[in-house]
Each structure stands twice: as structure tokens, then as C-alpha cells.
């Protein structure tokens, strides 16, 4: 190392360093750092935005899920109600039918009863008429003979115990 006049190089180095330091700082480092920072900021903003959208999407999705679940529950509910209603209606119909049948039966029975009563009445009357006719015929037959008349009267009279 051959140290030549030290003041020369120190002088020029200091001078050039200071001049170019200010030039570079103003026209190179500041714009570069600013641009880099700006870009970083915009990237950061974009990432934040993406994150926000992602969260919103997730929220929407969960909302959809919830809605779907609600719809499904509602459908189940409706189906269940319908089934119950059907059951109920069937039951009601059956009960109604039962009741009607019972009523019908009761009416029929009543009609039958009244018919039977009527028939019985008829028969009674008929039998009574027949009996009277028969009795008339028998009596007429027996009363045709005078002796027999008298015997009958006697017999009846003897039977009658006059107190």
C-alpha cells in the first residue's frame, strides 16, 4: 500500500460523496422508497379487501346454510302437519261414518220394531177376529140344539158360584 498524498483523495471523496449523496437521496432513494411503500400499501389494501370479501362470502354462505336449514325444518314441519291433518281427517271421517252407520242402524231397528209392532198388532187383530169368528161358528153350532143350550147354560151357571 503506497499512501500517496492523503488530503487529495480525502478531499475528492468527501466532495463527491456529499454531492452524489444529495443527488441520489433526492432523485433516487426517495422516489424508489416512496414507490415501494405505495405499492406495499396498495397490496396490503388489496389483501385486506380480499380478506373482507372472503369473510363476507363465508357469512353469506353460512346465512344460506341457515336459510336452507330453516327451509328444510319448515318443510318437515309442514309435512308433519299435513300428515297429522290427514290422520285427523281420516279419523274424523271414520268417526263420522261410524256415527252415521250407528244412526242408520238405530233407525232401521226402530223401523223394524215399529214394523214388527204393526205386524204383531195386525196378527193380534187378525187372530182376535179369527177367534171371534171361530167362537161364533162354534157357538152357532152348539146353540143349534136346544138341549145343548140348556146344558151349557147349566154348566156355566154351576160354575158360577154366586155368593
Amino acid at each position, binding site marked *: *500500500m*503506497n*499512501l*500517496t*498524498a*492523503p*488530503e*487529495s*483523495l*480525502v*478531499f*475528492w*471523496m*468527501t466532495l*463527491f*460523496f456529499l*454531492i*452524489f*449523496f444529495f*443527488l*441520489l*437521496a433526492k*432523485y*433516487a*432513494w*426517495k*422516489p*424508489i*422508497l416512496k*414507490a*415501494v411503500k*405505495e*405499492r406495499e400499501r*396498495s397490496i396490503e389494501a388489496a389483501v385486506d379487501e380480499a380478506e373482507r370479501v372472503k369473510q363476507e362470502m363465508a357469512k353469506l354462505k353460512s346465512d344460506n346454510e341457515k336459510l336452507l336449514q330453516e327451509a328444510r325444518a319448515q318443510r318437515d314441519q309442514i309435512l308433519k302437519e299435513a300428515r297429522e291433518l290427514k290422520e285427523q281427517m281420516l279419523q274424523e271421517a271414520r268417526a263420522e261414518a261410524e256415527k252415521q252407520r250407528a244412526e242408520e242402524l238405530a233407525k232401521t231397528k226402530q223401523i223394524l220394531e215399529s214394523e214388527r209392532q204393526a205386524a204383531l198388532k195386525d196378527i193380534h187383530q187378525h187372530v182376535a177376529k179369527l177367534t171371534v169368528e171361530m167362537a161364533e161358528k162354534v157357538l152357532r153350532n152348539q146353540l143349534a140344539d136346544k138341549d145343548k143350550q140348556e146344558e151349557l147354560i147349566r154348566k156355566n151357571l154351576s160354575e158360577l158360584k154366586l155368593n
Partner: protein
Amino acid sequence: MRKALLRAAFRIFVGLLLLSGPGIRAQESHAEQTGTGEAAAHKQHGQEIDAGEIVAHHTSDSHDYVVEIPFLLHKTIHLPVILWTDKGLSIFSSARFKGDNEGKVVVTDDKGNRFVRIHEVIYYADKVKPGEEVSALDFDKRPLDFSFTRNALAILFVFSLLLIVMYYTVRAYRNPKKLPKGIAGFIEPIVLFIRDDVAIPNIGKDKYERFMPYLLTVFFFILFSNLIGLIPFAPFGHNLTGNILITFVLAIFTFILTTINGNKHYWKEIFAPDIPKALWPIMIPIEILSMFTKPFALMVRLFANILAGHTIMISLVALIFIMGTVYVSPVSGLFVIFMSLIEIMVAFIQAYIFTVLSALFIGLAMHEPEEHHAHETAH
């Protein structure tokens, strides 16, 4: 690993030197010798040459700038000599020394001053006796020299190149939302690296921005200088960061920044450290010394690393001529290629180390000790 490689290369080199024995003998015929070691060696083919002289010549500053492209161009540009003499400013072309470096040519300027040049230093011809040993530090024997030397030109060249590169980089940012293309794609990751891995961790997120321009300027100046120094022909091939005066100026800037930004805590640690008062007579001088050793280490580390690289490369080439046989040239060539690759790595590493240590020193000077207060309240 780098050290080990360097050491291995150096050992081989020294071993070969020792083998060559009497081959290394100074030959004082460098008066007309100019240019790189290679060119000098060409001229001296078949003669004994002094590798040390070639290394010294290449790595030191000079008034003459040799523009050399092998086989194409060999031209010496004589740079202006600017002197502050007893009689005032004196400016003339270094061509007037006619390449003399032995004090044989006397130049008289218009004010009547008479100068001689010995080993690139200009002395008053009347104050130096012929054959006397003089050094650049004999300020009474020489005028103050502000010559625009080879290295001064190189500084201008490196900074201009840096400015041009940065001009094209900034142009790429017209649309700030687009990713940088071209040269900016190379510069931006480095800028971001300096910001995110050098400035912010060492100085702190709230204060780093003020120091970014300085750190970036220093980093890119050192990187460009290192890389340009590895290209062995004009207009490149300067040994800037391997010159202790350049690293001295850089270290001084770091020292100034550290000192003016030092906070109360920084000065308290130096002049009133938290140790028993009995130890103050020992500690305070050490602390004051450490203020200066930090930038001193910065200065020497960069200078020594780059100078060592240049020295080894020139020596490897000189080896061919020291051994005096052409059969060494493949060995030298391979070693030079190998070393060049290592030196590219060193160029980046040293630029990084200087920057990161500058940031660290500035950060330490501005450091506010939070855990210290917690410690005190706990008592």
C-alpha cells in the same frame, strides 16, 4: 470458509514464491512501467520482476490514468495536478513529469515553484535531496496536493454510473402499482433488503427512514466500487474500496452520524456508566476509545478485504513471470477465475457488512433502554 480459502490460496502463492527463490528481486526499472500487472509483466518478459512493486503500483493512487484494453488500446491520460503551495494555488498537467516517479524531472510552475515527483507524491524540488528517503507525511517538504487523481476520477465514474443506474430504476416506477422490470428488478430487492434486514432491525421501525439514504448510498457505492474493481480493463479496474483513504472517509461519515445521533443514554454509557465509581478510571477511557475503534474497524475491514483480493489476483498473474515458465499460466488462470468468483461474493458481503455495521452503530447510539427502567423499578 472464505478465510480458509484465502489462506489456502495465499499459502500456495507463498510456497511458490519461496520455491522461486532469487526470482523475487526488486528491479528498479518501473519508471516507465505503467498499467496493470499483466501489461507490466508483458514488457518485462524474460526478466526478473518484483510482484510487490506491481501490486503496489496497481493498488495505489496515481496522477496518470492508463486506459488499457488488452491488444487494442494502451494510452496514458495525464490528469491535472492541483497543488496548494506556499505561494498559492498551482495547477498544471501531470504530463509535465513525463512519467517520472524518481524525482529526476523537475517541473517549474508559473509562480516559480519547483516540483519533483517521487512515488506519486509531489515534493518541493529544493527541499528534497537526491536519493533521500521521503514519505507523503513530510508535510514540510511538499505542498498540499488536491490533484484530481486516478482514484478521484474513479469515484466520479462510480457515482455517475450509480446515478445513471438509479435514473433507469426510478423510471421503472412511473406506474407504482406495477412490479418493477429490467434494472429496477435487480435494484429493488437490494433496496428492500437494506430496508427490511439492515435498517429496520438495527435502527428501529420509527427512526430508520432518516438513515435510509445514507445506508443505500454507502451500500451501492461500495458494491459498485468492489464490482468495478474486479473488471480488469478500462474504464474499470480501479482499486477504490481497497484504498484506505476512501474507506476512511466512509467510516468518518458513519462516525459523524453515530456521534450526532447519540442520545443521553449513549453518552451516559460512555462518561457515567452504571458500574462502581472505582472502575470509572478504567472504563471511561475504554469507552471513549471504543467510540473510535468501531469506525476504525469499519475502515480497516473493508480496505483490507478488497486490497487482499486485488493483491492475490495480481500476484497470481505475476506468478507466471516470477516462475519464468509458461506452464504455470493454466494454474494461475484457473486460480484467477476461482478468486474472481470468490471476490464477486466478497464484493457483496463487504458492502453488506459495512452497511449493516453502520446501521448497528447508529442504532446503538439511538437505542433507548426499556428493560433498564424495568430493572430499576424492580429494586
